């Protein structure tokens, strides 16, 4: 995970759970994985299913997770979220414990 990807992934995390949830240098693979689940749930909620293309089959690999979350982080930073606020709030509550566990590596 390079520094640009960390920056963009932290943008996604802070979009869901608040501006001070994490700094780029604290982003880890577990946090990226939870962020991707949250994005998929939020996009399902908003019926914007085409924003994150899923891998053809099986569990997404680590590089897929980082690239996809980083790409969407760029879009969020540019003001393009395509997620209804109501969906964002529900997903934030749904995944809050998991994200906090991932932050601590628990």
């Amino acid at each position, binding site marked *: 995970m390079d520094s640009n990807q960390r920056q963009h992934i932290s943008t996604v995390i802070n979009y869901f759970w*608040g501006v*001070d*949830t994490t700094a780029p240098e604290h982003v880890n693979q*577990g946090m990226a994985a*939870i962020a991707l689940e949250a994005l998929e*749930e939020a996009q*399902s*909620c908003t019926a914007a299913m085409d924003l994150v293309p899923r891998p053809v089959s099986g569990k997404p690999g680590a590089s897929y997770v980082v690239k996809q979350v980083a790409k969407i982080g760029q879009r969020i930073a540019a003001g393009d979220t395509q997620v*209804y606020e*109501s*969906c964002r*709030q*529900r*997903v*934030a*509550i*749904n995944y*809050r*414990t*998991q994200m*906090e*566990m*991932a*932050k*601590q*590596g*628990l």
Partner: protein
Amino acid sequence: MKKFALLLVLAITSVTACAQSDQTITAVFSGMKFKVPGAPLIIGALGQSNDILLIKYSNNPGERYISFSTENSLDTGDCKVGDFFKEILETDSKYECEKSAVDSFRKVFSEGANSGVWQGEGRDYFYFLSDKQRSFVFFVPDNGHLVKLESDFLDARDFQKLLGTTSGH
């Protein structure tokens, strides 16, 4: 904020101190006591406001945990919390909460879940249980703060034992 932190410290102290011989321990959160499975491996206060009490039974990341958290930011669509959940569960549709709030909650929490309400000591516990994913129970303690109880391994019977509820519908 400090009050929350203090409550959580007390909760953690209680979890540690109240080990029982019947393989449950007492967890205290938001002024309520709960019987949780004994022998946890990790107990901690998480979240920016330390408003999540985590009790974990595995060292594998993200697995076998119970958490209690306060979720005061929940948008209830201009309804009272209890009315909102009743509308979610369609046990009473007279409340007419904001549709987007109801639909989005159903999409994220109810879809594919076994949902309903348990009663215990004059309190409603709104549950959304999944066999394959995480399960959630929402309720409001006497302090008025909405609490989310979450676990990835408890089943309906375990939750009811933990909460001290006996029946559901």
